[in-house]
């Protein structure tokens, strides 16, 4: 579980072994895309209240572990300046069976978007930029 300003290396992220009781690993990777609402995006900048973000992420992971029969949840969220194609968030959920793994993974990303104090600024190719508000954040990757 981490908030980092360094690139997230997926190979490393997914190299952690799952418990032997697990038969399923569901994952979600959020990457920076080059467009939003029809506008060309040049790069993103993520601001963060790091202390609280890590605290809320830990809470979300605990909620997932309590609510589903899952055994391991890994989360990493990058902040700072991210280019197109960079990994913004990576989630991995290990469980005995796939249904729980998928559901818990979905829960973790949705809750992160809603509750973790991280804010995205889009810098567009036309030179303008804006902070993304929650109102239209739900359509984002």
């Amino acid at each position: 579980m981490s908030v980092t300003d360094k690139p997230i290396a997926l190979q490393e992220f997914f190299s952690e072994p799952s418990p032997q009781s697990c038969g399923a690993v569901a994952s979600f990777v959020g990457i920076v895309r080059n467009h939003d609402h029809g506008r060309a995006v040049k790069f993103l900048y993520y601001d963060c209240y790091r202390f609280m973000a890590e605290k809320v992420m830990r809470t979300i992971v605990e909620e997932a572990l309590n609510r589903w029969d899952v055994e391991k949840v890994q989360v990493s969220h990058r902040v700072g300046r991210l280019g197109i194609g960079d990994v913004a968030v990576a989630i991995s959920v290990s469980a005995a069976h796939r249904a729980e793994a998928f559901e818990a993974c979905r829960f973790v990303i949705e809750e992160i978007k809603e509750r973790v104090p991280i804010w995205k600024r889009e810098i567009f190719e036309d030179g303008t930029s804006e902070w993304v508000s929650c109102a239209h954040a739900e359509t984002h990757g």
Partner: protein
Amino acid sequence: MTRIKVLFFAELGEIFGRARFIDIKEGSTVGEVVDLLAAESDRLYPKEPALIYAVNANLETREKKLKDRDELALMTPMSGG
């Protein structure tokens, strides 16, 4: 006198700066600090219905009373992920 630290992020950070110390009357609420800051910038009140408050990294309401050395964060709706 009670001294609190106020943190601002994203768009609010651009308006008010990242952080500042504010002296308030003992027992002042989060809402009273918001009112104080709104006097500085007319960009705060339009955002207020959606603002999220945290005191010492715990979510709180406008009615929360502040203590000396509390850390108050004023936040717009989150947009991570």
